[in-house]
């Protein structure tokens, strides 16, 4: 390919001309290209980051009466916690290499008698498993999904329709949005309470579960004294140390 055969065009001349072959050596060209490719590969971001939209309530003070009170039976409280190792670094699971986040959750209004067994329970963020080709929810997702059954049933129906190309992606998105906010269905209100040792990843995981389980009503709050007492009650029951000293001091006066 890199040869150019010089021909005299078939015209015969007296002195038989030698056929000339011009070979161009492309090796340096390839070398240079490789260098350029390496440069571009190192300097680019191929994966673009994703974003998670979040809307927080305004900081202005609202009267107790003006607040929308959630029905007790619909409320689920998730207290988040991240485990730390001795070096003050988030503890990592040996097998998967992922940080260990724990969730302590309870349903309804806090049990202030602290006597009900199994009122508060421990869960973790676990991905879906596949059993005989069917998606199975595990961990906290299973619990949240069960609470949001009515919404999820419709959601799955829309999803199948979309997968079968009966509706477009846009139609699916708008249907799913409307469905998640449908006040005629029984929907839970989730209160996410990140504890003092929680990392940012724990919070994102919790927000992710809201998205996955189509929960439209959730809020982020700080744990209260009652929550601490509830966890202490759980500690007493299981013999596990859950409340550890806060390794990070917040300089926020609040």
């Amino acid at each position: 390919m890199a040869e150019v055969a010089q021909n005299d065009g078939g015209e015969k001349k007296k002195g038989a001309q030698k056929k000339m072959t011009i070979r161009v050596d492309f090796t340096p060209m390839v070398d240079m290209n490789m260098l350029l490719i390496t440069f571009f590969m190192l300097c680019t971001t191929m994966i673009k980051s994703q974003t998670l939209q979040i809307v927080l309530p305004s900081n202005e003070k609202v009267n107790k009466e003006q607040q929308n009170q959630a029905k007790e039976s619909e409320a689920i409280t998730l207290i988040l916690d991240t485990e730390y190792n001795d070096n003050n670094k988030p503890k990592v699971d040996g097998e998967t290499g992922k940080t260990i986040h724990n969730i302590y959750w309870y349903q309804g209004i806090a049990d202030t008698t602290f006597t009900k067994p199994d009122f508060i329970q421990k869960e973790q963020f676990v991905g879906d498993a596949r059993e005989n080709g069917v998606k199975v929810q595990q961990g906290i997702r299973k619990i949240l999904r069960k609470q949001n059954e009515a919404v999820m049933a419709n959601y799955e129906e829309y999803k199948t329709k979309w997968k079968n190309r009966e509706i477009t992606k846009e139609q699916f998105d708008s249907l799913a949005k409307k469905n998640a906010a449908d006040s005629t269905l029984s929907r839970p209100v989730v209160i996410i309470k990140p504890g003092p040792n929680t990392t940012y990843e724990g919070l994102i995981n919790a927000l992710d579960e809201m998205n996955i389980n189509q929960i439209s009503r959730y809020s982020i709050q700080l744990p209260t004294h009652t929550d601490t007492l509830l966890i202490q009650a759980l500690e007493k029951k299981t013999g596990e140390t859950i409340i550890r000293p806060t390794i990070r001091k917040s300089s926020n006066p609040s």
Partner: protein
Amino acid sequence: MGKAKIKKKSTFIDMTAMSDVTVLLLTFFMLTSTFLQKEPTIVYTPSSVSEEKVPVNNLVTILVSSADKSGKLEDPAAVEGKIFISFTGDVDSTFSSGTIRGLMLDKAVGIYNEQHKTAPIEMTAARRKAFMETNMIGAPFAALPALLDMSISERDKVQGDLTRADVGIPINGNKDKEGRLNDFQVWLKAIYLVSKDIHDQKADGLTADEAKALEDLYNAVTKDGRGIAIKADKDTPFTTVEMIFDNLQTMSLNKFSLMTALTSEEEVSSTAK
């Protein structure tokens, strides 16, 4: 029987095809690439199932460093994320990143000096130029002039050292929009006012494209929350993130986005035991 003749073979390998392939690859990388922006610290964002892409234009990124990557810090109180801020303008309009940064700086310094009449900071043309050329910066206002007087390599070195007290934008204190704002809130106010200013000037005979770019910027920052993104490390303590949320809420910027990496529903960052 004569000996079997061994043909002399040339070892010359034809590199033309190879070169064709490499040029193709090169073209691909050149066309798809967006250059990495220099950031003072490496941040590993947590993963999420959200598929929404980060906007390319009109974005204010609030970078929160992880507690401590170097392992140098021993005082737990000091183990806190540092805040950096970066402004991205519109790629092909009059409001490029540089212009936006300049406007933001003018506004922010104006607000700061208004509130700190006894110790105002001075922004010379050279400092302003240095700010316009820097992608990401994180320093208290009081330390900003000194930082901008440094050479680029010196500045990078200072900004990269998270143990320094003059690195990171202070976010502590103040829960009141009207009181004396902390440095981070001054920036937020500047962001809001600049986008509003630009929006209000729209009538002054701009082209349709320019007007649209301005509208986008205004919407991104004030309405749909796409214009403000928090980029925090997965190990950043929630207390730091909560403080940022709180500051944003105080400044009535209730909608914003969190930067994440993509994952599937099967994988999440924790496992059952």
